[in-house]
């Protein structure tokens, strides 16, 4: 790894993004637009006494889910393009290290996700009155970690797709089960044992639990830090596996 090459690669990926104005607009506007939809959809739902309003419960989780899903998609397509247009093969004949490339994507899209998550969180708190016991800063932090998880899984999954059609199909395969089992629809401890076991090995479950901890507790809890560490570990594992899929020699 080299800091200069990592910085050059991060800059190159951000420059590519900058030339694509429409993608930037979608990245920034879509999560807030969806939160708006959610807000009006749930506006007339009665609140269960002793529980937070249903919008607060769902919106908090969505602040983690949106960056995860969007960055998974964007990264898997971007990396697939590197593979199919030959730039990856060429890069691997230069002094660039595999981790320079993977971390470059992680940092570049992580920065994009920071802007995205801050905007979405700003809208949730100020426009729609989201109320969490813990700080909004922690919510944004967890959202960005979720986004980097999406980047890492996207980098890994792009190795298993030959075409962009296949790459987008990994979205339902990788993202939807995690969303269904993360505890948003049914509490994880109320699921059948085997479903809970599956949920226990899916990283998004920990990301969502960390957000819920911030929702319930004024100070960061031990559970929240442990959950963040689990998500961080999943990111490292996905990146290492992703590095193993980058072959300098191919048939």
């Amino acid at each position, binding site marked *: 790894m080299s800091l*200069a*090459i990592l910085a*050059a*690669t991060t*800059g*190159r990926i951000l*420059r*590519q993004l900058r*030339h*694509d104005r429409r993608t930037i607009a979608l990245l920034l506007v879509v999560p807030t637009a969806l939160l708006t939809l959610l807000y009006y959809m749930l506006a007339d739902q009665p609140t269960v006494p002793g529980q937070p309003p249903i919008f607060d419960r769902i919106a908090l989780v969505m602040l983690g889910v949106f960056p995860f899903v969007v960055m998974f998609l964007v990264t898997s397509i971007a990396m697939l393009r590197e593979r199919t*247009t*030959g*730039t990856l*093969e*060429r*890069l*691997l*004949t*230069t*002094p*660039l290290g595999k981790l320079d490339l993977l971390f470059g994507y992680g940092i570049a899209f992580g920065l994009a996700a920071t802007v995205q998550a801050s905007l979405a969180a700003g809208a949730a708190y100020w426009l729609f009155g989201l109320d969490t016991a813990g700080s909004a800063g922690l919510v944004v932090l967890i959202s960005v970690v979720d986004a980097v998880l999406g980047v890492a899984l996207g980098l890994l999954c792009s190795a298993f797709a030959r075409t962009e059609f296949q790459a987008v199909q990994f979205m339902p395969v990788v993202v939807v089960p995690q969303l269904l089992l993360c505890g948003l629809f049914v509490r994880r401890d109320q699921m059948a044992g085997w479903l809970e076991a599956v949920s226990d090995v899916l990283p998004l479950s920990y990301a969502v639990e960390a957000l819920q901890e911030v929702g319930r507790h004024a100070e960061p809890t031990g559970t929240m830090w442990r959950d963040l560490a689990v998500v961080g570990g999943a990111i490292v594992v996905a990146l290492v596996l992703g590095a193993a899929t980058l072959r*300098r*020699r*191919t*048939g």
Partner: protein
Amino acid sequence: MTSAIEIRDLVVNRGKRRVLHGISCTIPAGSVTGLLGPSGSGKTTLLRAVVGVQVVAGGSVTVLGEPAGSPRLRRRVGYLTQAPSVYADLTVRENARYFARLYGLGAAEADRVIRAVGLADAAGQLVGTLSGGQRSRASLACALVGRPELVILDEPTVGQDPVLRAELWETFREMAADGSTVVVSSHVMDEAARCDRLLLIREGRLIADDTLAGVRAAAGTDDLEAAFLHLVRTRATAPVPAEGGTR
């Protein structure tokens, strides 16, 4: 004369098909070597083996004194892939600057290679909006960054007009004059006349490895197209299709 590339009994399979059948040759340093042969003859596979991105089944490839693909060679070898491999959503200048920075070089070097391929006027244009010929020159520019000791160019002149082709060949000759070793593949026989040495390849076997004059003498003709056909008929083991597959 020292050798830049030494290939011994190189065998490459792609899938179940054998595409290189035990190739051996030596490419001298500071020369322009043309690798010529019809489409599908194994030119790209041979060049990929020299760069070290091809899985090989047997034999050895030594490049600048080290096994092909050694990490230290990544700073010394420039590689142009056959399909342009640059970022379509970056400008020519942004592409060149990125590749320059991978070698620890700055904007001046990026500007130099852009001028060398005649793209100075299009430097600010997105690669995705360029013509096919311009796009492959943008890709070529990135392979020339850092004046590599060995430059492997897979069909760099395809799709270029005659004036530009002549200019590009002049650039390759200058690079060799400055001490670089240049290997250029082509399926256009008239480009062979611009090389110091020729490797003629057909169906995964070398049918000639000689100087330009040597190839002409062996075939008994100055016309390189005719020489190639003559060598195919006398040296190849496989039957020769009527059209020969070359222009």
